[in-house]
């Protein structure tokens, strides 16, 4: 139906006498219309001579428009198919494969980086634990050393203290001993003097006798 409409419309386009005849004449470039062109030419000439414009162009153009088809299969079909296959392979080489592999590689890289970041968080934890352990060990060591040092100095101090005490005691003992001795000496010497002194006292108290 559309075909018919278009055909009739086309009739009107190509029908005008002077300007539109050249196109119909140039059509012979194409192979098939070649058969019709002499006929067309004669027809148009005849029509221009007779000036019966309305009626005559129809048959010639009807012939031409029988070829005007929507469903006109020819070699275009396999050529387009071949072009499509060519386009497919070339685009694959140019576009899909290189860019696709590039994108996949980048995805893998990003994923790897992300997972490595997660890994480092575990690593960081481990390191922190290690650091804590080291700190703990160091602290224990320090406190041990401190304790030992304290103990050592305390022992030393004790020893010195004991020594000093011993010395002092010894000295005290000696001094006491000396004192005792002196006391005894004095008592002894006093003992010897006591008789004289008591005699003297007696003499003094009892002088008259």
């Amino acid at each position, binding site marked *: 139906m559309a*075909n018919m409409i278009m055909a009739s419309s086309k009739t009107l386009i190509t029908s005008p006498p002077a300007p539109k005849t050249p196109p119909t004449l140039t059509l012979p470039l*194409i192979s*098939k219309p070649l058969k019709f062109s002499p006929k067309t030419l004669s027809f148009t000439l005849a029509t221009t001579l007779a000036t019966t414009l309305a009626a005559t162009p129809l048959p010639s153009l009807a012939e031409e428009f029988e070829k005007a088809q929507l469903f006109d299969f020819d070699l275009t*079909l396999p050529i387009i198919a071949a072009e*499509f296959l060519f386009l497919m392979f070339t*685009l694959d080489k140019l576009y899909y494969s*290189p*860019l696709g592999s590039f994108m996949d590689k980048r995805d893998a890289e990003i994923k790897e980086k992300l997972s490595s970041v997660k890994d480092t968080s575990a690593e960081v934890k481990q390191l922190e634990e290690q650091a804590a352990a080291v700190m703990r060990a160091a602290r224990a060591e320090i406190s041990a050393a401190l304790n030992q040092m304290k103990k050592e100095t305390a022992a030393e101090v004790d020893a010195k203290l004991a020594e000093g005490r011993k010395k002092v005691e010894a000295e005290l003992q000696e001094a006491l001993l000396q004192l005792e001795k002196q006391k005894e000496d004095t008592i002894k010497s006093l003992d010897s003097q006591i008789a004289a002194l008591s005699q003297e006292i007696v003499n003094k108290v009892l002088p008259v006798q």
Partner: protein
Amino acid sequence: MNVLSCSINTLNGLYDLSGVEVGQHFYWKIGGFQVHGQVLITSWVVIAILLGSAALAVRNPQTIPTGGQNFFEYVLEFIRDVSKTQIGEEYGPWVPFIGTMFLFIFVSNWSGALLPWKLIQLPHGELAAPTNDINTTVALALLTSVAYFYAGLSKKGLSYFGKYIQPTPILLPINILEDFTKPLSLSFRLFGNILADELVVVVLVSLVPSVVPIPVMFLGLFTSGIQALIFATLAAAYIGESMEGHH
């Protein structure tokens, strides 16, 4: 007579303005076969755009993407996502097929809407989106069929054909019919949508000059993207379907 020619001239002017040409092809001849030149030209432009931009953006990939590389990475992620949802874990080898399907159709559709093809005059026919031509869409649909057959056969060997009598042999005709309806629906959906979109825009432009067609044009851009996505998704779904184990 005068009145008639005059009216024809004005009508002619109108049609020149609208420039509706459907089913007109710029024929080339290659080895005795005809080809649609306008389709090939536009498809070359589309391929050049795709290859050029991809090569430019992915030439030297950076770890932190910027600009073009960013965009192309987004597109690749999108394609991979589509393939993965439809095909499953073994989507890897199919990314180029699905991706090229999507990109080719998408850029083709948008080129039809955005590139000023009409500025280039052809002797016959006109430049438009390559997906505007049934040959392109059928070629892509047939490639999809080949792809899902290849996927199934390479995955399961000849036991792939066991799916035709699943779940019951009664469904054999319907299952065989499916292999024909799949490419048919794929190709005609895309073809019809793009052609209709272009026609609507052209007819509206011819009827109402400036402002009114603009929303329709945006709708066309939207439809074009959706169609590309649908085609790629369905292709991936068919491939995934033929690869998955039937019980």
